[in-house]
């Protein structure tokens, strides 16, 4: 059994290793302004730190296109290597214990980037939970080349 942080975006469930989670943030105040730098958006954290914002909803819907950030949105802040990521989510999420040994890979129809981004799917009753690879999520935050690559692949 492993402790996972389970989050939701729309009707989609995704999970990351609980050990990676730094905290949960909410963007409520009018003073919130993401920092834009080199094509990435950053969420300011206490003590002058910052986390790369990843819009998971847009990522699920298609190729990481950037949607305007809304107030009241929650962020799951996770650590990956020496970088912090802020993953958008609906609600505050929760910690769950899951048997990751029964994780299923995606069907072979899904290739390349999808497989790298989603190394496994956890089945919990009728719920399917996507396990996300944080390195690939981080790469999607600089979206332009990846979008072009995916679209080119789809047209082939």
């Amino acid at each position, binding site marked *: 059994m492993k402790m996972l942080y389970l989050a939701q975006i729309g009707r989609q469930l995704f999970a990351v290793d609980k050990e990676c989670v730094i905290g949960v943030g909410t963007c409520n105040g009018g003073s919130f302004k993401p920092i834009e730098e080199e094509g990435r958006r950053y969420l300011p954290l206490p003590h002058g730190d910052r986390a790369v914002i990843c819009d998971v909803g847009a990522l699920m819907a298609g190729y990481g296109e950037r949607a305007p950030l809304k107030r009241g949105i929650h962020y799951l802040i996770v650590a990956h290597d020496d970088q912090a990521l802020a993953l958008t989510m609906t609600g505050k999420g929760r910690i769950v214990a899951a048997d990751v040994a029964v994780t299923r890979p995606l*069907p*072979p*129809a*899904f290739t390349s980037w999808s497989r790298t981004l989603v190394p496994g799917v956890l089945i919990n009753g009728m719920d*399917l939970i*996507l396990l996300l690879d944080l390195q690939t999520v981080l790469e999607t935050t600089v979206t332009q080349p990846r979008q072009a690559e*995916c679209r080119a692949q*789809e047209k082939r």
Partner: protein
Amino acid sequence: MSMKNERQQLGLRSFLLPLAVSDSPGNFVCLFTQNQVVEILEPRFVLQIPGSPGYLPGVLLYHDSLLPVIDLDELCNRRQAGPRKRYRQLVVVRTGAADPATGAPLKAVVAVKAQVRIAKISGKELAESFERQEAPPSLNASGLVRGCFRRQDDAIALLDLGPVVRGAYATT
């Protein structure tokens, strides 16, 4: 043997899935035989997989298996991607392909936006009233057409979904 012949005389059940082919006017359907179709499901939540092409809208949990969901309209009209519609039925099919890693037979779920029609087609009808025709260019471009026929008012396509479910389609 005689019972088998009798069944063939009466006709095999075939499932005609409506297909939107942009460069072909009239009714276009994709035919699956009763041996291919496992079950027709009511619409349900399809888990989207990020980064997947439009013809693979997601996965569905079916009897403890994760099956890829295939949108035939997107597959056959990939240059004409339109807004996504709600699926009316989900048809679980045997593709005849095997998992390259495990060798297990691969099933898929075909998502359709209009009602699936069921027709009984006898061997005699198959031989006499099915006229072979050229597949429209958009359908041909998919590289998955095994045959294209005309039957009364319908144009019928036979598709091989094997390359799609094996993951060999996007890279070919």
